[in-house]
């Protein structure tokens, strides 16, 4: 295994597929997307198999994640936003499962690819825009005109609102991508110190203790970040969906 910290983000072809000159190969990234689906759905499906009135430990984990997202969406976008519950719950579970799978050594982290996080962010913003126009027509544009702003400032405020809206998919995708990428690189760098220092003999082994502790501590931190980023992604999705459901009122 190479010691290069970016090596873990390489996309390798497993089954090469090419349609119309475009490369659609089944890669290790695709494999871990499939694994994410299997793990996410499998966990939720099999832990709730008993349908226990009194939930088992694992069943209550599934129920808690369900109720966690349901209450988040209800608080964020109101009861009208609950029609997006399958979407938000899928996003949260997909990102969370992908992040958690990425924490397993030698596993590929799906969410460390900017194109994946950007696609998910565009899916969110696309849903907001399409639903907003579908539901409110041009009334959706009231989103960019906050009420109670003096006429003089209106052009400026509207410009700022439009820019902030356009930057949402970028910030949403970069946040998740950068957190996962940076965390994995940091882990790899510190773990690399351990191996390269311990190759230097007794002094090196003694010196490798500190990066080893750092690696252990960072692994814990990374698990926290994995959950937190999935949570942040879901919370922001709820907030953006609120704009689609209630464009006028803030």
């Amino acid at each position, binding site marked *: 295994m190479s010691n290069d910290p970016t090596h873990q983000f390489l*996309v390798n072809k497993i089954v090469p597929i090419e349609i119309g000159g475009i490369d659609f190969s089944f890669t290790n990234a695709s494999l871990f997307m499939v694994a994410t689906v299997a793990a996410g*759905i499998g966990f939720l499906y099999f832990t709730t198999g008993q*349908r226990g009135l009194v939930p088992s430990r694992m069943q209550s984990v599934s129920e808690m994640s369900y109720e966690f997202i349901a209450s988040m969406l209800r608080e964020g976008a109101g009861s009208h936003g609950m029609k997006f519950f399958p979407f938000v719950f899928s996003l949260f579970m997909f990102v969370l499962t992908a992040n958690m799978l990425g924490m397993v050594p030698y596993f590929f982290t799906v969410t460390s690819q900017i194109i994946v996080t950007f696609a998910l962010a565009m899916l969110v913003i696309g849903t907001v825009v399409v639903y907003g126009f579908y539901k409110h027509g041009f009334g959706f544009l009231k989103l960019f005109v906050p009420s109670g702003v003096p006429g003089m400032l209106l052009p400026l405020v509207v410009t700022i609102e439009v820019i902030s809206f356009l930057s949402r998919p970028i910030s949403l995708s970069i946040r998740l991508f950068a957190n996962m990428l940076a965390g994995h690189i940091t882990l790899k760098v510190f773990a690399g110190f351990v191996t390269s220092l311990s190759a230097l003999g007794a002094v090196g082994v003694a010196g490798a203790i500190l990066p080893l502790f750092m690696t252990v501590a960072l692994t814990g931190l990374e698990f926290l970040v994995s959950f937190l980023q999935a949570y942040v992604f879901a919370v922001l999705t709820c907030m953006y969906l609120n704009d689609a459901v209630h464009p006028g009122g803030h």
Partner: protein
Amino acid sequence: MSVTLASAESTPFEIAQAETPATTHETPADTHAAQPAGEVHTETGVAHGEEAGSGVFPPFDQSTFASQLLWLAITFGLFYLLMSKVVIPRIGGILETRHDRIAQDLDEASRLKAEADAAIASYEQELASARTKGNAIASTARDEAKARADAERAKIEASLQDKIAGAETRIAEIKAKALADVGTIAEETTAAVVEQLIGAKVTKAEVASAVKSAAGK
């Protein structure tokens, strides 16, 4: 030893076999796209060096974008479908069943409580009515007993009255008879007294008129 040797020999052979189809697969891709990146992916060691050499940071390697987008669409679409069709109805159903069950249990509990309250109320009513009935029975019994005692007493008193009246009549009769006898006794006594005193017989008529006149005074 020979066994281990054989297995040691077979291993590289298998690897070679495994590698062969991979390279043949790779060949058309190379000829079509003529991308050095195509070769790069199969042999990780070299790949990495060339990748770093070309200066493309793996997450920004645009040649992988199309494939990632396609597979993300497929996998996330499948994920969403399974979520909305299977998992969410299932968990939602479990939670709903639990809510219903709790509500049902609470209803049942309040119904049982109402029943218990009703039972207590009816018990107390029964008790009160029984007490009233008991009092009524006691008072009727007392009244009847009193009435019977009164009737008995009246009857006895009446019969006593009768006996008293009978006795009084008999006394009056006896008295009258005695009084009637008094004249005769007085006449006989007078005749005897006169005979003794004067030694002469007096007639019954004389004696009777004398007694009568003495009694009349």
